[in-house]
């Protein structure tokens, strides 16, 4: 079992010079690795094109490997469901009955919402096109949570687009090659997503921190977030379409955290949503200063814009909005300043005065502005 020391030494290196040269090359590569890391941190994106090229080249191989794995998984699931076919059938019957009951309710609500939107002259959400793709590599490590999909520029995938599976948002595109793209999952340390908590209508940033429950940050201090409230995306920043389900607020934690709908059992297939904001938020003209020459619309007109016209908020808060309307006070002067700017413009252009008299302007403004007003959150 144990080798004598002399023999070990004899085997351990091929000679003095070989040992020295091996150490030299070892040092060289250590220095090279450190240099590459410093460069990649100092100049973000310097290796992006190389990374995309490598991903593109590797994509067909991964695709080829992912197919038999997918078949095996389907077989496994098939056997699984065969064994529990009776329970599954019962469950589906119950679910079907429940969904049928919901269907008529939803139809009624849809008609109601459409009618309200018509009355409010609200802008309807632009339709969101989507591309389906297969997850071909899941190289998530202990602190990097990303997956690779088999669609890229050629299929219209671009950096920043939202990625969903059948349950909800799973992440966003961070790099796209010609036929592959990398998705940063919501749990990754670098993931930041603008979201809104439904019900209390508070906006926050969903921050990944490597745990399975990302945290909600940048909430107003003292805000009460009820456990179980749904969290959806907002179009703030012009990146994500509004109302994509993300998860529910998890209970029993000091900092509000989100129980994701997608969970950690990751999807085989995903959809990439291509959403374009109605106004380019990055190139939006700055707000004119009060009293500046040529400042066109008076401040009041922008303030009077009903927030119900916001695509994101409208879809989320439409049913609740009219009920609060009569009791709602006049618009606080500060509130709309914090509203997403990109939505004001098209609405302001469609004669706000026409909207203001018929519907009390502040109907849903306080709801939206709650995140802007610091302490009281109703």
């Amino acid at each position, binding site marked *: *079992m144990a080798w004598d020391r002399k023999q070990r030494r004899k085997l351990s290196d091929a000679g003095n010079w070989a040992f020295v040269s091996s150490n030299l090359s070892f040092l060289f*590569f250590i220095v090279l690795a450190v240099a590459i890391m410093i460069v990649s941190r100092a100049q973000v994106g310097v290796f992006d094109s190389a990374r995309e090229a490598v991903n593109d080249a590797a994509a067909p*191989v991964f695709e080829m490997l992912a197919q038999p794995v997918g078949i095996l998984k389907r077989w496994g699931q098939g056997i699984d469901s065969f064994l529990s076919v009776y329970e599954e059938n019962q469950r589906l019957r119950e679910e079907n009955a429940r969904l049928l009951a919901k269907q008529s309710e939803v139809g009624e609500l849809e008609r109601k919402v459409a009618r309200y939107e018509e009355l409010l002259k609200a802008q309807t959400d632009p339709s969101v096109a989507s591309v389906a793709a297969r997850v071909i590599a899941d190289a998530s490590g202990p602190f990097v949570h990303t997956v690779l999909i088999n669609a890229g520029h050629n299929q219209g995938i671009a950096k920043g687009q939202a990625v969903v599976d059948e349950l909800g948002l799973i992440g966003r595109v961070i790099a796209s090659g010609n036929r592959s793209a990398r998705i940063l999952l919501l749990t990754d340390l670098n993931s930041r997503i603008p979201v809104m908590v439904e019900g209390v209508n508070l906006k926050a940033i969903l921050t990944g921190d*490597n745990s399975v429950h990302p945290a909600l940050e940048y909430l107003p201090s003292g805000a009460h977030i009820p456990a179980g409230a749904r969290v959806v995306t907002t179009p703030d920043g012009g990146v994500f379409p509004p109302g994509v389900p993300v998860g529910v607020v998890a209970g029993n934690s000091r900092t509000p955290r989100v129980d994701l709908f997608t969970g950690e059992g990751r999807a085989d297939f995903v959809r990439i949503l291509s959403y374009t904001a109605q106004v380019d938020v990055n190139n939006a003209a700055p707000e004119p200063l009060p009293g500046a020459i040529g400042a066109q619309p008076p401040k009041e007109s922008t303030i009077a814009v009903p927030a119900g016209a916001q695509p994101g908020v409208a879809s989320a808060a439409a049913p609740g909005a009219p009920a609060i309307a009569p009791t709602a006070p006049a618009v606080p002067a500060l509130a709309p300043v914090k509203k997403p700017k990109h939505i004001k413009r098209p609405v302001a252009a469609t004669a706000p005065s026409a909207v203001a008299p018929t519907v009390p302007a502040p109907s849903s403004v306080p709801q939206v502005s709650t995140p802007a007003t610091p302490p009281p959150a109703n």
Partner: protein
Amino acid sequence: MSIFVQSAIVLIGRVLWLSLPFFATAAVMLLAIVPINLFRGWMPGPELGLIAAFFWAVYAPNLFPPAAIFALGLVQDFASGGPVGFWALIYLAAYGFTLSQRVFFIGRSLIGVWLGFAAVATIAGMAIWLLASTVYNRWVPPAEIFLQVAVTTLAFPLVGPLFLVLRRAMTTAPERL
């Protein structure tokens, strides 16, 4: 056929033969990132590059020079989507450390080498945690890193013999795992 062409073919053949461990290890690493969802995402997969760095440093460093370890690290960097150079540096550090302690590992039984790997993997886990925290400029939660270290340590007796088969095919130097 001229002598130059012949010698070029022989040289290319030799280079390919000698880089077989690298390609085999890279292939195993790429196979491991196919989305199988074996543990439904609850558990990180083993860090196969770390096992490779340790194994080849102990059993056949001449078949796996630092350049190959560096390239293996870059493969992992590009595959994982993390900062470029990160895994290259970690693998090189683990390789260098193992090489410097090679005399303690060589010729041990499976249990002995396994324990040695557990020690190297734990040190590497600490290095990963510190380096990741430095790169991301905040304290990265260490739990998942050390969970992966544990998974990697458990996977060593499964992956090690695969590499050993390759090593036996390539060299007759007597070693045992």
